[in-house]
């Protein structure tokens, strides 16, 4: 992810906020007809995703309702360090786009948190009790209120928005214009997360 590169190379504080992309998805999720076949040329989204380290495996037949996954992301933001938050997001993207696992599956959300070094049992308890529901609803409402309509949206200093899977130079231009400093030593790039 290019935003991760920006975080590693620049004096940046990275935070995540939830967005519910498709409110038409029912709480139980819904089946999905794959839009591509093995012979379909790669889409712009697939090519960009692969360049960013997200492999889009074809043939996914289920679209999950993601509120609970967003709750898990919120929990990880509260309890994890920045590296763990990044890793957890990478893990859930891989579970969904590459491995076609359901992000509605509590076991998947907990397993990946545990693999990230977090307390999976505590996450499970908070998800089962609904402790994060309100926080996620508030986050989604706030994103809608400020005009977010597409993901990913990157908000710089609470004022400037960049939308889409932009290339790294776009991040650099905005950071330079905001007077950001480069880190004297870039943060190290972690290895690809192991399979849980």
């Amino acid at each position, binding site marked *: 992810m290019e935003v991760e590169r920006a975080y590693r190379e620049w004096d940046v504080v990275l935070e995540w906020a*939830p967005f519910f992309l*498709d409110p038409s998805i029912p709480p139980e999720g819904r089946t999905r007809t794959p839009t591509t076949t093995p012979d379909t040329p790669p889409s712009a989204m697939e090519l960009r995703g692969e360049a960013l380290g997200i492999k889009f495996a074809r043939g996914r037949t289920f679209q999950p309702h993601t509120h609970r996954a967003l709750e898990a992301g919120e929990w990880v933001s509260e309890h994890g360090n920045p590296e763990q938050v990044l890793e957890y997001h990478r893990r*859930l993207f891989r579970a969904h786009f590459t491995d076609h696992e359901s992000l509605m599956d509590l076991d998947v959300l907990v397993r990946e948190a545990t693999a990230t070094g977090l307390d999976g049992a505590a996450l499970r308890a908070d998800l089962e009790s609904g402790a994060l529901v309100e926080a996620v609803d508030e986050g989604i409402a706030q994103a809608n209120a400020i*005009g977010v309509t*597409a993901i990913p*949206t990157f*908000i710089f*200093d609470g004022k*400037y928005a960049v939308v889409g899977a932009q290339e790294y130079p776009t991040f650099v*231009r905005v950071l330079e214009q905001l007077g950001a400093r480069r880190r004297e030593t870039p943060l190290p790039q972690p290895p690809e997360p192991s399979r849980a």
Partner: protein
Amino acid sequence: MPAPHPAKGSHPRPAGPCPSPGAPLAYTDGMTNDPASDAIEARREPVSIVVVSDFI
């Protein structure tokens, strides 16, 4: 202006000035807007980036 980049959403905005008067966010690609007016010489505090995203 660079080519559009993939974004998911019903009404993804292109990079560029926000077309809605009064909207709190200014959409930018770092070229068509000018956040430089907020630049701080020898800025000491980090820049905040909030990633608004879903997992799908």
